[in-house]
C-alpha cells in the first residue's frame, strides 16, 4: 500500500530521518514506535506530502508520491496537534474538511453526521469545539481523517493526552478501520498501544529504523528471556527462561511457596535492547 524508500530528511544539522525504507501492507495496522523526537512525525509528514524529503521516494499503491493531489486524496490524516477550528462547531469543522476532499454539500453533511455518531459526539455536534474536552477533540480530530473514506489513514499520536475512556474508544475505532479493509499507520510512544493494536511495528530512534516485525517477532528476536520469580518466605528466586510455564511447573513443588510472578519481555524490553535506554527516557 505504502512504500518508503531510502527516505532522508534533515533540518539544519539535525538528521530527522535517516535512510528509512519500509513497506506497509494493505488492510493492516502499522505502528511507528519510538520516543518523542525519534522521527516518527517527520516520516508521516513526508508520507502524506507535507514535507519534501531531501532524498528517497514515497509511493502509494503504485500511484506515485503525495505531492500529487490525487494521491493525497487517498490518504486521511489526523495530525498530532488537534487540527480543528475551535470557534466552529463539530459539524462545521467536518463539513469544511469534507468539502476540501471533494464531497458535495449533502454528502459532506451526511458523512459528518455518520461519523459523529461513530465517535459518540452526535449530541454535541452543534457545540463549538472550544467547549469540548481533550478526549472529545481527539476523537473529532480522528473523525476528520475519515470523512472521505480513505484507504490509507495516518494517525500521528492519536491518543496523546486523552482520558482512558476516550483512549479505548479511539483504539476500538482504529481496529474497526482495519476490519473495514483500511490501512492504518499509527505512530505512538506508548508501547502498550502498539502491542495491543499493531500487526507490525517499526521501532525508530534518531531517525533510523532499528527493527521491523510483528510484536511477537520483535519480542522473540530482541526482547530477551521471560523471568519467573518464585517467592519462598523471605527468599526470592529469579529464573530467566524461554518457556516460563514449563519452568514454573517444574519448580512448583513443596508447600513453602508464598508467591509466583512471570515477567514476559515486551516492546519496552525490545527498545531497551536495541537502544540501550528506556522508551520512556
Amino acid at each position, binding site marked *: 500500500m505504502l512504500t518508503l524508500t531510502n527516505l532522508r530528511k534533515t533540518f539544519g544539522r539535525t538528521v530527522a530521518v535517516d535512510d528509512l525504507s519500509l513497506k506497509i501492507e494493505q488492510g493492516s495496522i502499522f505502528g511507528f514506535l519510538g520516543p518523542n523526537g525519534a522521527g516518527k512525525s517527520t516520516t508521516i509528514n513526508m508520507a502524506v506530502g*507535507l514535507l519534501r524529503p531531501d532524498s528517497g521516494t514515497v509511493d502509494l499503491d503504485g500511484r506515485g508520491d503525495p505531492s500529487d493531489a490525487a494521491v*493525497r486524496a487517498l490518504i486521511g*490524516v489526523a*495530525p*498530532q496537534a488537534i487540527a*480543528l*477550528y475551535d*470557534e466552529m462547531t463539530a459539524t462545521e469543522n467536518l463539513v*469544511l474538511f469534507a468539502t*476540501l476532499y471533494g464531497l458535495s454539500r449533502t454528502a459532506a453533511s451526511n458523512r459528518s453526521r455518520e461519523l459523529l455518531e461513530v465517535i459518540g459526539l452526535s449530541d454535541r455536534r452543534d457545540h463549538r469545539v472550544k467547549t469540548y474536552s481533550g478526549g472529545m477533540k481527539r476523537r473529532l480530530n480522528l473523525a476528520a481523517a475519515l470523512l472521505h473514506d480513505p484507504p490509507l489513514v495516518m494517525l500521528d499520536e492519536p491518543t496523546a493526552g486523552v482520558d482512558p475512556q476516550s483512549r479505548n474508544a479511539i483504539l476500538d475505532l482504529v481496529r474497526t478501520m482495519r476490519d473495514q479493509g483500511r490501512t492504518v499507520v499509527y505512530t505512538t510512544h506508548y508501547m502498550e498501544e502498539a502491542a495491543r493494536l499493531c500487526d507490525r511495528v517499526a521501532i525508530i530512534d534518531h531517525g533510523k529504523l532499528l527493527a521491523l516485525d510483528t510484536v511477537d517477532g520483535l519480542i522473540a528476536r530482541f526482547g530477551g528471556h521471560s523471568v519467573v520469580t518464585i517467592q519462598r518466605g523471605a527468599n526470592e528466586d529469579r529464573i530467566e527462561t524461554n518457556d516460563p510455564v514449563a519452568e514454573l511447573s517444574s519448580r512448583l513443588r513443596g508447600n513453602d511457596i508464598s508467591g509466583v510472578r512471570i515477567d514476559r519481555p515486551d516492546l519496552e524490553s525490545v527498545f531497551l535492547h536495541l537502544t540501550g535506554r528506556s522508551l520512556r527516557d
Partner: protein
Amino acid sequence: MRAVWAMALKDIRLLLRDRMGCFFALVFPLCIAIFFGSIFGGGGGGKGIQVAVVDEDLTPGSSAYIAALKDGDELVVKTEIATAGPDEVTSQQPLTRETATNLVRRGKLDAYIIITKGFGKARDNIFSGNSMRLEVGVDPARKAAVGMLEGVLTKYAFERMAESFADPKKMREQAKTSLAEIQKSPTTNPLLKPAAERFFGTLDGFLAVMPDSSTSDAATGENAGANGVVGVGGVGGGGWQPVKIETSAVLPDGPVIKNAYAITFPQGIIWGVMGCAQSFGLSMAMERSKGTLVRLRAAPIRRWQVLAGKALACFLFTIAICALLLLLARFGFGVVPTSLPLVALAVVSIAICFVGIMMLLAVAGKTERGSGGLAWGIMLLLSMIGGGMIPLEFMPGWMKTISVISPIRWSISALEAGVWRGLGIADIALPVVILVAIGIVGFMLGLRAYAMNESD
C-alpha cells in the same frame, strides 16, 4: 473553486466569531471617523502647508510678496504648472485661478492664494486706505490649516510695514503719497480727510525724529512684522484693513459637503480595512500554530488555493466593512457620496490592495505573536506616513513626499474622490492603478513566499 469558497467562508465565519477582530474591523474605525470628525471639524493645519499662488497683480510689490512667502519656512509655494503644448513639449506656465482651484479641489495642494489686482499698490502705500486683498481657497479637508495660513499671509504682508518703519525716510514718502491720495479721492468720507491730515502730520513728525534702523539695533524684521500684525491689525479692526484675506472652501463640483464626517469617514474606513487585512493575515499564523494548516495542506487541494481562500475572504469582508461604514456614514452622519460608482471603484481597488498586503502579512510571521507584532508595526507605519493617523498637512514636506509609498494615502485619495471631492474617473485613475498594482504584487509575492516557506 468550491474548496476556495469553503475556506473563504470559514475565515469569514471565524472572524465574525472573533469579537476582538470584529472590534478592530468595525467599531474601532467608526470611533476613528467620529473622533477626527469631532475634533478637527475635518482636517488639520500646520507647518508645510502646500499652496498655489496666483499673481493677478503682476507688480513688483506682488512679486516681492511671493518671494517672501517662498523664502519663509511656513509654506511650500507653487506658482507654476507644467503644461504640455501642441508639440508635446512641456513648459512651465504661471498658475491661473482655474488651475490653482483644480489643484486644491483634487487634493494636490492644501490651498490657493490669489493676489488680486491692486495688491502691490496697496502694499507700497499702506496708509492709502486700500487693502492688500488676498483671496484664499482652502481644501475643506485642511480646514484647521486656515488659521495658520491667514496668520502667515498677514505676517508677510506686514513685514513690508516693518521695513517701512525701519526706513523712516521711505515711510515719510509713503505717508505723503497716501495723504495726497486720500485728499484727492472722491470716495473718501469728507469727515475722514481732516482726521487723516492730522494723523499723517503726527506720523510725519514722529518719523522725522526716528533713528534710521539701518544703522541701529532695532528689532529684526521678523519680530517687527509679528508685532505689527497685532498692533496695526488691532487698530484696523474697525474701518481700516491693510490686509484683507477672503477665505473660502474649495468645494467639489457636486453636492456641497454638509459635515466634517464626509472627510473623516474615508480615514475611518481605511482603519477598518487595515483591521481586516491584519486579522486575515494573522489567521494564517494561527492556522500554522494550531495545526489546522497541516490539515489544509494534506487535503487534495493546491497550495495556492489555501491562500486564495484567505484572499477571497479578505476581499469580501473588506468590501462588506466598507459598505457597512459607508451606510453608517450615510444614514447615521448624513454623508452623501458625490459619486457612488467612484466610491465602488475605490472600494474594490482598496480591497484588492489590502488583499495583497494581507498575503504578505500572512507569510511574513511564523508565530501568532510575531505575526501580530509585525502586522501592527507595518500597518501603523503605513498609516502614519500615509495620513491615516495624522492628516498629511500636519506633516513636514519630506514626509508628505514619502507618503506616496503608503497605500493608505492612495486609499484615502481614492475614497475621497467619490465621497466628497466630486472628482471624475480620470482623477481617481492613478490611485486606483497604484492600489491594484500593490494588490497584485503583494499577492504574487505572498504566493511565492508561501510556496517557499511551506515546502520544507
